[in-house]
């Protein structure tokens, strides 16, 4: 049986579109709001956005929900900045 996901997301989203989707997620945990406004591929979650390390797992869980993907521990290891996260999201979307 084929089930259509209500949250189905096109797999050909651009970097900018993915950053735009990622921004409200990290905004929930970012303590540096100025750095959040300037978010780009090189933005580091801990060093720039000052996200508490215990909240990094919330970012990962939120990303899983938003994009309807599963992020394994090996992928999660790299999710310390925007570009690495986008690369992981893209590869997981492509594998769906």
């Amino acid at each position, binding site marked *: 049986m084929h089930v259509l996901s209500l949250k189905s997301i096109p797999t050909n989203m651009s970097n900018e579109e993915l950053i735009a989707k990622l921004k409200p997620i990290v905004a929930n945990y970012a303590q540096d709001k100025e750095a959040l406004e300037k978010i780009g591929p090189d933005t580091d979650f801990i060093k720039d956005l000052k996200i*508490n*390390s215990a909240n990094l797992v919330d970012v990962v869980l939120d990303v899983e929900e938003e994009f309807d993907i599963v992020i394994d521990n090996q992928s*999660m290891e*790299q999710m*310390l900045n925007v570009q690495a996260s986008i690369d992981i999201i893209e590869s997981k979307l492509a594998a769906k």
Partner: protein
Amino acid sequence: MIGNDIVDLAQAEKDSNWKRAGYLEKLFTTEEQFLISSDIHQECMVWLLWTMKESAYKISSGRSKLREFAPVKLSCNNLIIYDNTATGNVTYNDQLYFTRSTIEKTYIHTIAAMSQEELDLIKIDIIETKDHQIRINNPNCVSHHGNYLALVYS
């Protein structure tokens, strides 16, 4: 090298919902999850184990400059809790770390070192302040969270 990590329990309660589906599985090994689920103070055990991992990770990342978010690879072992102190080990990338923790009503603080001798020599200053920029006498490692600032010296 030494490491330390402090968790302000009131701040943690505000910022983190550790009961969220998938949360504990992404942070803790099966054994650690068992320790948490079988403890009467589950929240305390969550943050005790977390500070153990963080304090060991700070030594490792300081030495190698390698960064990763791999909490399950930091494995807490040999945890012994007596009154308001706890001792244990953390293993990470084949390296063993020694930890000692203080469990207070309002915070949990853990120090880590690469040998028991080094651990025993650590001096701790815990200051109740929101000013996280305060530094006294060049601490070897600093941790701040919520209302607490922890400075440790080897």
